């Protein structure tokens, strides 16, 4: 007891250092997240705000039978995977190209990075004009100029989600490129000289030197693009609002429309839990794959 008191006094100052951060983090993040768990098992809703009772897994059962919720989950998966693949597949070659001895390298770097600084919402509104089927839609002006039919990018349920992904690949490819570029600069140039002496082709060098040594950046960028892809909301909100016919509805957009606007608090919370589990599951699997590749 006495020893505990002494060690507490010694640690008091450190506890004082930690307290503000813990308090803030607990109040606005941990507490609401834990409450979400609790509410997901209750029938709390706008219609039933007072008489809140425990209903077991009923909310989860409702989710799994509701077409809109399921659509939201598959859309979010499709979106996150497409986003992750395209951003990284475009960013790596771009970074390799910019890693050459170019005169305008820093100019090119600034241009490709620029969109990443802007608010996603603004980018969304801008692209809704670019995609528009009205007379002023820039992309459709080009399409009809080339003699094709107008394409209804955001109104056609078959392509709307891809049109949404495209804007985000455009916005964040430069950001990821810069991360790859920083990683590329840590690769010693001797490796490339040795490969050249052995008569390796460009593609062989890329496959056996560049790609394996880029693994730290690849693991960071793929994990982060995946997580950010799963959290997608602003861009959908600005471009389509979840439509047409729920073709671009995502998990968070549903949590907001169903959970907050329509007042299904219990269901919304259950959806939040499903969301968290999906993110954790996908990230864990992803990290395992990366680890396997690193050990090979």
């Amino acid at each position: 007891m006495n020893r505990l008191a002494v060690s507490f006094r010694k640690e008091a100052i450190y506890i004082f250092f930690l307290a503000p951060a813990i308090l803030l983090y607990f109040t606005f993040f941990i507490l609401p997240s834990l409450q979400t768990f609790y509410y997901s098992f209750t029938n709390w809703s706008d219609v039933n705000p007072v008489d809140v009772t425990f209903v077991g897994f009923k909310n989860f059962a409702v989710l799994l039978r509701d077409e809109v919720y399921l659509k939201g989950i598959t859309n979010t998966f499709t979106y996150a995977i497409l986003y992750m693949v395209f951003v990284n597949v475009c960013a790596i070659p771009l970074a390799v190209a910019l890693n050459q001895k170019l005169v305008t390298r820093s100019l090119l770097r600034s241009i490709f990075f620029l969109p990443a600084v802007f608010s996603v919402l603004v980018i969304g509104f801008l692209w809704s004009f670019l995609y528009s089927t009205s007379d002023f839609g820039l992309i459709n002006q080009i399409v009809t100029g080339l003699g094709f039919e107008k394409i209804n990018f955001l109104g056609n349920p078959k392509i709307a989600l891809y049109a949404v992904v495209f804007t985000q690949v455009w916005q964040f490819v430069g950001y990821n490129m810069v991360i790859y570029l920083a990683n590329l600069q840590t690769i010693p140039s001797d490796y490339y000289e040795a490969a050249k002496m052995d008569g390796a082709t460009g593609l062989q060098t890329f496959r056996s030197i560049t790609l394996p040594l880029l693994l730290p950046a690849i693991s960071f960028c793929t994990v982060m693009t995946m997580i950010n892809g799963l959290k997608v909301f602003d861009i959908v909100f600005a471009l389509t609002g979840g439509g047409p016919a729920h073709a671009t509805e995502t998990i968070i957009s549903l949590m907001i429309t169903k959970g907050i606007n329509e007042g299904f608090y219990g269901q919304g919370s259950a959806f939040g839990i499903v969301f968290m589990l999906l993110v954790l599951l996908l990230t864990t699997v992803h990290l395992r794959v990366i680890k396997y590749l690193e050990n090979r």
Partner: protein
Amino acid sequence: MESKRTISLKLLEIGLLVLAAVFIIPVYYLFVTTFKTSEEALLHPLRVPLNFTLENYTSALESMKYFTALKNNVIISVAGVTIVILFSSMAAYVIARRKRKVYGYIFMFFLTGIMVPYQMGLLPLYKLISSLDLINTLTGVILIEACYSLPLAIFLFRNFIDSVPLELEEAAFIDGCGVFRTYWTITFRLLTPVVATVAILTALATWNNFLTPLLFLHSREKGVLLLELYRNVGEFTIDYARLFPMLFLTILPLMLFYLSMQRFIIEGMTAGSVKG
């Protein structure tokens, strides 16, 4: 052989410049359209404006309540950055310097915030903010957004403090300096690079966050730029000559920030990724 290499490099460079030009067309289009009338924008979307007009801007400034919104944005970002830097650097200092197991667990506790999406707790958070009477206050938004930026900031600070040598602090302790004074007069001053990184990341995250103000700020006096933009988009979807200046005015502060501190921003936004 050498000249063949330089030629292919030149070709690569030209190719990349063309690609960059196409890549940046949306931003260029946004910029030039702001100076045009609707008719001119429709007929010559990509041409440099001929009847250069600033009228769009004056009406945009007014209908967005631009300077009120800008002021609110600045207050939220400055307060958010200050809170995050103070709280997270102090917490990270203890986590980095004290070797007790419990501090390791506290670190893990903070790291979950990087993986678990905060949007999960939005419903209870809304209830909490109402019960604290913080709905429609900047304070509420500042606290929420500072909280969201804490985990990454603590992670970056801890990694950096790990690499700061102990000797100076030990000398200060021997001279009878307390932990509090040692931290602020010695350690904190050595953290400048990571303070800059965290400040940039937090400033951009709070500035670009749309969901939190959308849910928690209702009156127009408390509006931020993105909210004002959103309100106006609903009204002016047809009259896009009036809308484009609003889009541009919303990103203008970020554009100026980027152009003036480009090197720091690029380094800051990518810091802690490969090294981490």
